[in-house]
């Protein structure tokens, strides 16, 4: 059974990584491990999850819906945001006021930043943020941390490179913050135009994060524990020539992995396009598919905790 919580999670909203302490994060990961080790069918029998994705999502949505089904609960979902009331001009506040009556917990993704925070203030039932614009995606951070802990047997004092589009990639924003809480040394590897934005750096400085900036991963490889790759999107570059210049630098190939440590692992929030060469999939360093799988257990843990069925 899950171990005793040091803090209360029942009816709690999951909106931003900034709402969680180190102890609370560790507790979520501990509960997730219980669900990974042993299925808990029937735990949330009679509980209804409303899955409101106003923006496309594959992994987050599927894993939340699957997590609820595996715990014995059921799911009602927005089939297509384009056919929902919001497309007819209904405000988010009104949509939430209606939907909360039909369910026990809401998971939502919305293109506007702060949308999940607003929904949580309106809804009497707990709300889980599945991504709000470029702002937060806390459940992705929990599953990233779970995967890091699983591969490294610890979270403290690791050397982690966050690579690719650090400007627009929300997953790296919250992950950098959470890792800094655990005393990681962070290496931000990105073209200058896609480096960590000022508001994220301000948060990191506030908690005295250890970090450095790099434009190329080559020199770092031998000291890294984790290489967290993200996709660089062509459309982020106003000049296509600029994109072509950086395109190859951030592609992981077996050649780049020659000097890595034994415990070194590659993570990626997926989908990948060409950041990780397919040849890397067969190396012991590839962990991104297991990472995606871990989303299921972390989301089961969150649902069970906020429904008051795990402590």
């Amino acid at each position, binding site marked *: 059974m899950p171990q005793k919580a040091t803090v209360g999670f029942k009816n709690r909203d999951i909106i931003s990584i900034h709402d969680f302490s180190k102890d609370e994060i560790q507790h979520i990961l501990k509960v997730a491990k219980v669900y990974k080790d042993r299925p808990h069918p029937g735990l949330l029998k009679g509980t209804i999850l409303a899955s409101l994705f106003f923006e496309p999502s594959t992994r987050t949505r599927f894993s939340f819906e699957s997590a609820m089904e595996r715990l014995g609960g059921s799911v009602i979902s927005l089939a297509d945001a384009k056919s929902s009331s919001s497309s007819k001009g209904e405000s988010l506040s009104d949509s939430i006021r209606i939907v909360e009556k039909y369910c026990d917990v809401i998971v939502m993704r919305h*293109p506007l930043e*702060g949308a999940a925070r607003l929904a949580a203030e309106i809804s009497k039932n707990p709300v889980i943020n599945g991504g709000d614009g470029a702002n937060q995606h806390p459940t992705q951070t929990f599953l990233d941390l779970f995967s890091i802990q699983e591969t490294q047997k610890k979270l403290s004092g690791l050397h982690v490179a966050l690579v690719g589009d650090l400007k627009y990639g929300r997953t790296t924003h919250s992950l950098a913050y959470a890792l800094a809480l655990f005393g990681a040394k962070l290496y931000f590897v990105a073209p200058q135009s896609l480096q960590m934005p*000022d508001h994220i750096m301000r948060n990191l400085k506030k908690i005295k994060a250890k970090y450095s900036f790099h434009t190329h991963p080559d020199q770092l490889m031998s000291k890294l524990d984790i290489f967290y790759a993200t996709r660089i999107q062509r459309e982020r570059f106003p000049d296509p020539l600029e994109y072509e210049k950086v395109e190859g630098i951030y592609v992981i190939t077996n050649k780049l992995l020659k000097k890595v440590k034994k415990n070194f692992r590659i993570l990626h929030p997926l989908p990948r396009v060409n950041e990780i060469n397919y040849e890397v999939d067969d190396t012991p360093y590839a962990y991104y598919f297991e990472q995606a799988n871990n989303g299921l257990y972390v989301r089961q843990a969150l649902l069970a905790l906020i429904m008051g069925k795990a402590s």
Partner: protein
Amino acid sequence: MRAFRVYAIKQGTVIDHIPEGKGVEIIELLSLRKWKKVVTLGMGFTSRKLGAKDIVKIEEKELNQDEANKIALIAPTATINIIRNFKLVRKTQVKVPRVIEGIVKCANPACITNHDHVRTRFYLEKAKPLLVLCHYCERYFDESALTLL
């Protein structure tokens, strides 16, 4: 006979040391257009501290601390003088409140507060220079990015 540029008031509030050009915004902020008594706006006075300043005089209204603190967001140098029977009875500096609700707009166009029916809320991070954090989109903004709702 002495020529007065702005006459003294008997009862009310004088907001002094307003940065030049911000006097009009203070009138909007405090909804003084709806105040039924006399309101005087003076612009471009010489000031040793600021170079140039605006002054707003509100007759028969004593600003409370909340109203005074709102002013700090757009005019951090302002002083509030409470006048009774032509005498200055209290002089205070404005102070930015720790939580700023429903006064300024979020400068992030993708913030939910610019699209839904919701009162904006910011947390004061630093008073000088002013830096606030949006409760919803979690972005930081300095004084230059803040506009009144």
